């Protein structure tokens, strides 16, 4: 396949009539038509493969218990109900279990608060640092930037083991502070690298103009650059929230009840004797739903965020 595949635009010979002696052209037209159909077919297959599991969980969350466990599975023919959501949010889940999830609403709230707090702190600390790394030349700048990026690729267990031992000693296990501080360290490097890229895209000449007109560097940053990178700031905020929201390893190890986050709660549904898949699915949708909405808001920056600003789209 050529990298510049023309798709179905049918540019060559689009207007040509099937005149005698034009058989080569006609063959080419047929080939293009065939490839256009194949591409569309492939698109359909790709969409089914990547969206079916999402449809599965959403539809299961809307099913009554007797529609969940059926053969053949009821993919479309079921009576939708919000019972599962009510049960999960009210804490009246119907499964029999030793490890109950009595207060899923509280766990969602924990996730939300921890995400907001660590992201907020990361923005306050990280944006000024990103500005300096983008604008000011000093010795060791490149090395410092790379070191900050390197913190993102530390194996989580390399951090988790010492943090757990430390937290046990200073009684930070199962506290908000404990998780916020950890997530701050993840968010901070993300904020610095993302914002460094966005700030570097604003021409420095704009700031110099403002500084000649009599404001200091801080004034130039606050009045000129910051408003210009506001979309980037928003994207970075959402990405940081998203990563914190999805985090599981640290949350499951370092929290048990007081600061338990939503993904941990969802994983607890499995430890029951008879998993009520409808309830579990509703919990899953409540966790993944906000993420989907956020992701759609920042889709242009998402890949860039996932590789910590190592590439620009």
């Amino acid at each position, binding site marked *: 396949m050529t990298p510049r595949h023309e798709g179905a635009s049918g540019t060559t010979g689009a207007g040509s009539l099937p005149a005698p002696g034009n058989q080569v052209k006609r063959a080419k037209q047929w080939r293009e038509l065939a490839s256009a159909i194949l591409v569309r077919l492939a698109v359909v297959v790709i969409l089914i493969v990547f969206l079916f599991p999402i449809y599965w969980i959403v539809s299961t969350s809307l099913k009554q218990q007797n529609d969940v466990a059926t053969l053949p599975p009821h993919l479309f023919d079921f009576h939708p109900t919000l019972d599962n959501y009510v049960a999960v949010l009210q804490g009246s889940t119907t499964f029999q279990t030793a490890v109950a999830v009595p207060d899923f609403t509280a766990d969602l709230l924990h996730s939300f608060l921890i995400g907001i707090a660590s992201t907020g702190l990361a923005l306050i*600390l990280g944006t000024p640092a990103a500005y300096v790394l983008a604008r000011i030349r000093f010795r060791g700048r490149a090395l410092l930037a790379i070191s900050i990026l390197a913190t993102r690729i530390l194996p989580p267990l390399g951090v988790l083991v010492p943090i757990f031992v430390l937290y046990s000693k200073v009684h930070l296990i199962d506290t908000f502070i404990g998780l916020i501080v950890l997530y701050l360290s993840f968010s*901070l490097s993300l904020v610095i690298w993302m914002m460094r890229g966005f700030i570097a895209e604003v021409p420095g000449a704009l700031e110099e103009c403002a500084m000649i007109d009599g404001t200091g560097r801080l004034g130039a940053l606050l009045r000129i650059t910051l408003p210009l990178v506001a979309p980037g700031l928003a994207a970075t905020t959402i990405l940081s929230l998203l990563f914190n929201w999805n985090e*599981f390893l640290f949350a499951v190890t370092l929290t048990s009840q007081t600061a338990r986050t939503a993904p941990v709660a969802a994983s607890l549904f499995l430890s029951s004797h008879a998993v009520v898949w409808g309830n579990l699915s509703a919990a899953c949708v409540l*966790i993944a739903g906000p993420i989907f909405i956020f992701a759609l808001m920042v889709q242009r920056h998402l*890949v860039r965020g996932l590789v910590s600003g*190592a590439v620009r789209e």
Partner: protein
Amino acid sequence: MDRSLEGPIVVTRKRSTRRWRVDRFLPAFMLAPAVLVLAALTLFPIGYVIYLSLTDTGVNSPNGSFIGLDNFRLIKDDPAFWDSVRVTGLFTGGAVLAEFVLGFAIALLLNGKMRGLGLLRTLMLLPMVMTPVIVALTWRMLYGPTYGYFDYLLSRLGLGQPNWLDNSRLALVSVIAVDVWQWTPFMFLLLTAGLQSMPTEPFEAARVDGAGRLATFRHLTLPLMRNIIIIALIFRAIDAFDTFDIIWVLTNGGPGTTTQTLTIYSYFQSFRWFNFGYGAALSVVMLVVVAVFCAIMVLLMNRETA
């Protein structure tokens, strides 16, 4: 002091001196808090994990005594460790390779103007932003033994129930498939971005010269995409190497130890058996592996620019 000197000029100079001072030290003030916090939150754990790896900290020895490199000697002769290395290699290699090939194929297939392509790219984002735990829970339902959808499909075809997650020969493949589902879109989007940032002139020249599709791909697309391919592969490899959530929820390392990667094994040592010293030593090994990954990336990318 001669009052006549206090003209506007002097005042301006004073003010600009003060501003010069502020501007001179401002960057340090802006940089320092973030760097200090980050240093504290990364250098401390690294230092502490290395220290722990040299002790026998654990249930029997809460405060741990120094035992030198004994943990690493134990690791060298630990069959469970080597088994987890093998599983990690299969998981990381299999997942990243499949994601790369699939993602690149889809990116090439759809690299053109077609209506609805933007929508497709948007929808492809959904798997990769989905909370990994939720992804794993969803797939556990799909893999489920009685009412799972895959078993239903196979039974329609007259094939047996393979026990996706409980079959020791299939479990690793089933887990890899979930990772491939979640992260192929990442490869697709990243490589699409790469394809679209390529210059068009060389491709026009190649077409004029009558170069075939395969030749164009090998001699133009691949070299031009080199850096982005390296970034995609290494970032994904590091991520796959660290994978915890998906395996934890899907199989918990089982059946037996067939899906027990280094991450899972290290987690068990530290948090199931509370051998923090040994677990820390395993973490140090992982730290070194990731450092090697990164060194490879830097070397490969530098060679290209040189």
